[in-house]
C-alpha cells in the first residue's frame, strides 16, 4: 500500500514537471545560419499600357464649390467653368413696413484656383429663365439651364483666392425690389412661388477671359444673395438683412458646375465616345487627365499573366505602379495634386468600383524619396488589383483609371508619361514570393 502511495506521488511529480516551459527563445545568432525557404523577386518588366479615355459626362451637381472662370490650356484648349445655382430664403416673412436699401451677391473664396490669377477676370451674373431641375436628379459637367443672355450684373476683378475672404457683387435694385416686395407683401410664401419670379442664377466668366478658374464655397454661410433693408422705428430705423442661400438636396440638387473645353490638341479630338481609348504611343507617349471635363488615364497590364511562367508556386507580395508627370506640365499656377484616386472600370470604361488599400481608398501619392530635382513620381499601391487580375480565369478587358480626387468640382490636370516615353516609362514593380520551387 505504501508503495502505491509513493508511486502516485512520483507520478504527480512528473506530471507537474511536464508542463511546457519551452517558449522557444529567439535565435538572433542564427541569422546567417540558414537561408529563407522563400525566394522573393522583384520584377519590373511587365508592360504597362497607358491610354487616355474621356467620360461622356461627369457628375458635377451637389458640389460644395462654385467654380467659375476661363483660361486657355496648352493641351485641353479653352477651359471654361460656370456655375448654376438656385438660392432661396430660409423663411418668407418680412415686416410689412420694411424698405429695401440694396442687394448684392456675396461669394466666399474657398482657396481653389487654377491658372494665372494675376490676370483680370470678369464674373457675369445671369438670371435663369428655367427651373434648376431635371428628371435625372443629377447634373453633369455638360448640363445647362437656359439663362437670360444679358447679365444682371458684371463684375470685373482680380481674383485673390488665398488673401481675400470674399467678394461682393452689387445687384440692381430693380432685381431686388420685386423679390423683396413679393415676400414682404406675402405674394411669395414658399419656394414654388419664388420660382415663378426667380429660378436662380448662373455665374459665367467673361466671354474673352483667359485668366483663371476660381472656386467659391457654396455653403450658406459663405456665399449668398443679401438684401439690406430697414424697418422704420420711432427714433431710428432698424437695419436688417435677408439672405437667399443654397438649400441643397441630394435627391434634387440645386447647384452644379458646367465645365467644358474646346479646341484641345487635335489628338484628344479622337475621344468622341467614352469607350474610345487613346493609346499613349499615339499621343506623344503621354496620357492626359483633367478633372471636370472628364479626361482620365486608363491603365492595363496586358502581359501580367506571364508571371505564371516563373517556375514554382508563388504569390504577389506587392505591386507598385510608378507614373511620372513631365515636369514641364506643371508649375505654381498649374499645380499638381499630391494624390490620385484609383477606380476600376469595365471594358466600356464604366466605373465599377473604387480600389482599396487596407480598408481605405487607394491613392497614388507622390513619392517624397524620389522627389529629386523637383521631379515628382506617383507611387500607386495596386497589389490587391494585380492579385485579382492574376486570379481571374476569364479574360475580361477591364482596367483601372487614375484621376484627381476632386474630379467633379475642379479642373485639375495631370499629364503622365506613357509606357514608351524616353524620359520615364510608366513602370509596374512587382514583388513576388515563391514559397515552393518544386511545383
Amino acid at each position, binding site marked *: 500500500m505504501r508503495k502505491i502511495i509513493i508511486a502516485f506521488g512520483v507520478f504527480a511529480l512528473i506530471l507537474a514537471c*511536464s508542463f*511546457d516551459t519551452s517558449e522557444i527563445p529567439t535565435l538572433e545568432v542564427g541569422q546567417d545560419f*540558414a537561408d*529563407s525557404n522563400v*525566394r*522573393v*523577386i*522583384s520584377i519590373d518588366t511587365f508592360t504597362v499600357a497607358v491610354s487616355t479615355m474621356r467620360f461622356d459626362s461627369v457628375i458635377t451637381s451637389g458640389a460644395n464649390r462654385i467654380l467659375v472662370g476661363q483660361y486657355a490650356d496648352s493641351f485641353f484648349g479653352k477651359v471654361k467653368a460656370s456655375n448654376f445655382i438656385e438660392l432661396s430664403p430660409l423663411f418668407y416673412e418680412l415686416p410689412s413696413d420694411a424698405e429695401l436699401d440694396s442687394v448684392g451677391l456675396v461669394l466666399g473664396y474657398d482657396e481653389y484656383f487654377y491658372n494665372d490669377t494675376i490676370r483680370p477676370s470678369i464674373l457675369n451674373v445671369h438670371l435663369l429663365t428655367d427651373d434648376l431641375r431635371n428628371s435625372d436628379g443629377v447634373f453633369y459637367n455638360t448640363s445647362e439651364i437656359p439663362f437670360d443672355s444679358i447679365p444682371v450684373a458684371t463684375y470685373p476683378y482680380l481674383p485673390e483666392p488665398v488673401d481675400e475672404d470674399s467678394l461682393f457683387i452689387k445687384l440692381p435694385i430693380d432685381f431686388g425690389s420685386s423679390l423683396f416686395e413679393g415676400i414682404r407683401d406675402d405674394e411669395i410664401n414658399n419656394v414654388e412661388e419664388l420660382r415663378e419670379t426667380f429660378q436662380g442664377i448662373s455665374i459665367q466668366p467673361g466671354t474673352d477671359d483667359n485668366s483663371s478658374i476660381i472656386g467659391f464655397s457654396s455653403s450658406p454661410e459663405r456665399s449668398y444673395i443679401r438684401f439690406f433693408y430697414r424697418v422704420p422705428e420711432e427714433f431710428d430705423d432698424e437695419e436688417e438683412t435677408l439672405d437667399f442661400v443654397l438649400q441643397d438636396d441630394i435627391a434634387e440638387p440645386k447647384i452644379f458646375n458646367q465645365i467644358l473645353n474646346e479646341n484641345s490638341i487635335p489628338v484628344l479630338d479622337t475621344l468622341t465616345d467614352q469607350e474610345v481609348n487613346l493609346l499613349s504611343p499615339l499621343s506623344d507617349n503621354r496620357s492626359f487627365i483633367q478633372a471636370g471635363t472628364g479626361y482620365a488615364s486608363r491603365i492595363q497590364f496586358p502581359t501580367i499573366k506571364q508571371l505564371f511562367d516563373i517556375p514554382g508556386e508563388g504569390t504577389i507580395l506587392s505591386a507598385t505602379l510608378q507614373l511620372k508627370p513631365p515636369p514641364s506640365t506643371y508649375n505654381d499656377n498649374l499645380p499638381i495634386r499630391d494624390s490620385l484616386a484609383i477606380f476600376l472600370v469595365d471594358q466600356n470604361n464604366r466605373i465599377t468600383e473604387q480600389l482599396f488599400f487596407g480598408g481605405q481608398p487607394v491613392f497614388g501619392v507622390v513619392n517624397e524619396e524620389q522627389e529629386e530635382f523637383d521631379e515628382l513620381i506617383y507611387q500607386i499601391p495596386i497589389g490587391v488589383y494585380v492579385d485579382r487580375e492574376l486570379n481571374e480565369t476569364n479574360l475580361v478587358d477591364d482596367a483601372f483609371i487614375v484621376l484627381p480626387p476632386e474630379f467633379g468640382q475642379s479642373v485639375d490636370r495631370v499629364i503622365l508619361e506613357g509606357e514608351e516615353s524616353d524620359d520615364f516609362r510608366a513602370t509596374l514593380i512587382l514583388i513576388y514570393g515563391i514559397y515552393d520551387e518544386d511545383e
Partner: protein
Amino acid sequence: MMKMNNVLALVVIGFTGLGSYSQTNRLTGSPYSLFGLGVETSSNVGKNASLGGGGFALHEPNVINIRNPASFGTESTNSFIFDMGFLGELSTIQNNTTEENRLASNFSSLAFSANIDEKSTFGLAVLPYSDVGYSLLGIQSNIEGSFAQFNSNIFGSGALNSLSLNYGRTFFKGLRLGAKISYLFGSIEETEIVQTGISGLNVEEVSNYSGVQFGLGIQTDIAKWFSYGGTFLFPTQLSGTQDRVVGKVLDLTESPVESETDLALDRFGLPAEINNGIRINPWGHFVLNLDHSFKAWSITEQQDNIGDFVDQNVFSGGAEYIINPSSFKFIGRLQFRAGYYYDTGYLSIRGENISSEGISFGLGFPFARNSGSQINISYTNTDRGSTNTILVQENIHSVNINISLKDFWFLQRKIN
C-alpha cells in the same frame, strides 16, 4: 493469468503514453534541429544516458536497456519494469558575436517490459526519435532583381517519436537474441514569416512522417566478466505528407493564398545502423561499457538546405560503481555512473561536420533494499557544432530523470 494482466496493463498504459505525446513535444532548442528530421533525442530510458549513451552489451534484470532488444532476454522471474523519463535541457548557443540561453523541458519517455516466461521478455517503449525546436529570427535575404532585402523569421517545432516493440530471449546460457520493430511517426511544423516592406507572407508547413524500422540484437557472455552486444538496424524510409497553409498581407489586407493538405513529400531515408559494445566487469561491482555506433547516412544520398548527410560514428564509454547492492546503508546501494561520447555527426555544412561530444554523470537511487525499483538521474554536458564561419556552437546541459519501477502492482498479487 498474471501474464495476461501484464500484457493488458502494458498496452493500455502504452497508448495513454502515445496520447500525451501529441500535445507536449518540445525537447530541444537546438538550431541544428532545422536540418533533416531534427536532432537526435537526448531522451533516455533506464540508465544509458549516464553511461555515455551506449550500452549495447549491458544486461540487467532491474533496468530496461532499449539500446539492445537482446537485453530483454535477461533471465529473471515474473518481472515487470515500468520506466518513465523526464528531460530538461538548458542550452547556451553562440556564434562569433552573440550568445543566448534557452530552456526546453518535458516529460520524455515511457517504457515497459514484462516477462512472458523465465527466458523471454517483451517490452514496449515510447520515446522521441528526434526533436525539432528552433526559431531563427532576422534572416536577411536579397530580393532578386533589386538591391533591397527582405526579412524572414523561421520557427520549427515537433518531433519524431518511436514506438518500439522489443522481444528478447535467452537461447542458452550466455546467449541472448532479440528483435525489435519500431514504428516511427510524428510531425514537424515549420513556419516562415517573410516581411518585405509592409507586405508579409506566412508559410505554415506541417510535415507528417511515418515508417517502420526493424532491428536485431545479440548479447553473449563470453566470460563471466566480459560480454559482447551488438545490434543491426535495417535501413528504412519514412514516407511523408505535408499540409501547407499560405497566407499573406497585401496592401494591409490579409488574404489566404493557399491551403493544401496531403502534399506528397520526398521520402526520408534512415540509414542502416551497426552497433557494437562490450561490457567488462573487472572486479566487484564495477562495470565498464565501451560502444561504437555506425550509421551509413551517405548511402541515403540525401541533402538538406545547406548541408549534406555524411556517415556517422559514435564512440562512447561508461562506468558504473556500487559499493554493495545488498548493503543495509543507503549510501552503499547508491549507483555511481559516468560516461563520455564523441559523435562525428551526420551533417556536413559547407564541408564542416557538425560533431558533438559530451560527458555524463549519473546516480541511481534504489527505492529500498531488494525492491529493484530505482530513480536514475543523469546529467550530460554536450558540446555541439562550432563557431567557425557561419556555424553555431551549442553547449547543452541536459538532465534526465527516470523512474524505474519493478514488479510494482504485481507484488501484492504475488503475496496472494
